């Protein structure tokens, strides 16, 4: 899957889970500081990415990812290993 496609789908999932405007999400956006993610929502974000891309992510490593761009790279690595 192309980086651009992954990025678009990641942004769509974030907009759904966090209830933010998709237009406002950039690669540099930080989940907590910029997108207002509450700590309780981190598990739901991880589960939503897993559901969208049909992958399993290691929870502790996934929760270390702080920005949208890093999340796209993280998911891309999982898709390549699939």
């Amino acid at each position, binding site marked *: 899957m192309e980086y651009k496609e992954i990025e678009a789908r990641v942004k769509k999932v974030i907009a*759904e*889970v966090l209830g933010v405007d998709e237009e406002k999400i950039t690669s540099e956006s930080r989940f907590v500081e910029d997108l207002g993610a509450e700590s*309780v929502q981190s*598990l*739901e974000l991880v*589960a*939503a990415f897993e*559901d969208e891309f049909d992958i399993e992510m290691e929870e502790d490593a996934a929760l270390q990812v702080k920005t949208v761009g890093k999340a796209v790279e993280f998911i891309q690595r999982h898709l390549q290993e699939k």
Partner: protein
Amino acid sequence: MGLKEKFFEKARDTCKKIVLPEGTDERIQKAAEVLKKEGIAAPVLVGNKDEIISRASQRGIDCSNLEIVDPLTYPGLPELVNLYSESRKVKKGVAERILKKELVFGGMLLAADKVDGMVAGAASTTASVIQASALTVGYAYGISTPSSFFIMELPDGRVLFYADCAVNIDPSAQQLAEISISTSSSFQKIMGQQPKTALLSFSTKGSASHPFVDKVQQAVSLAKEIVGDSLCIDGEFQADTALVEAVARKKIKEPSPVAGQTNVLIFPDLDAGNIAYKLTQYLAGASAFGPILQGFAKPVSDLSRGAKVEDIVVITAIVCCLV
């Protein structure tokens, strides 16, 4: 009869169903065996059934009478998935994935009234237990801050509740107000008596001025706004004014139902709370039970990761008293 035995006796009266999501942990399995055998609670272990049974038998633990629920094969799973997906407004696929996590699954059993309480944390962090509880059972009415309390049993038999000594490092006035309300309600449920809740400071009713004092005064006003007169909450008081009637008579001009007869002590921050409970434990020879989580819509408690089997049994009995 000591306080611990009183908790056991009260728990035995109703023998509540308590979910223990860390079903493969050795201490949890041993605690479950004791709880069942002593009739204190009906434990429900979460995890893979074969794995739980084989580990228990290797450890010489009898779990033949225990209820074991596997999140992957639980017949009521579709109901829990629907409930989660509706309450959190996420897709069913997301709910299905998240409910594979034992802590979240345990919380959802509680949210759906399949059990009466949840005890976890022997193998998970406090943050994970709070997160799972917030996602499933949610917070109590008027509360948005989870907190914790200790039950202190003094050598003369007096019982005092201390909060927050474990969770909130530097609570705001609003959070302090919520901690006061949650702890008052926990005291009422567990002790069956009227809580008299004092918010502590180095100042008594404006005797000193400082932003620290302002925060506690604001918290008292906010707590009164939220609960009205239904709970006895007052302050700000110095500890001696809160605890000793003679001092209260001298220092307080207006009559207060709390000063001099406090049974619930609310500390301004975690420094004060944590230091105070340990000093009471080690200098006054008090027994400390806790920390017990509070602020959720249903009884949930965390365990310290170093918890011994007996600690787990006692915390579970206290959670039963909160149902």
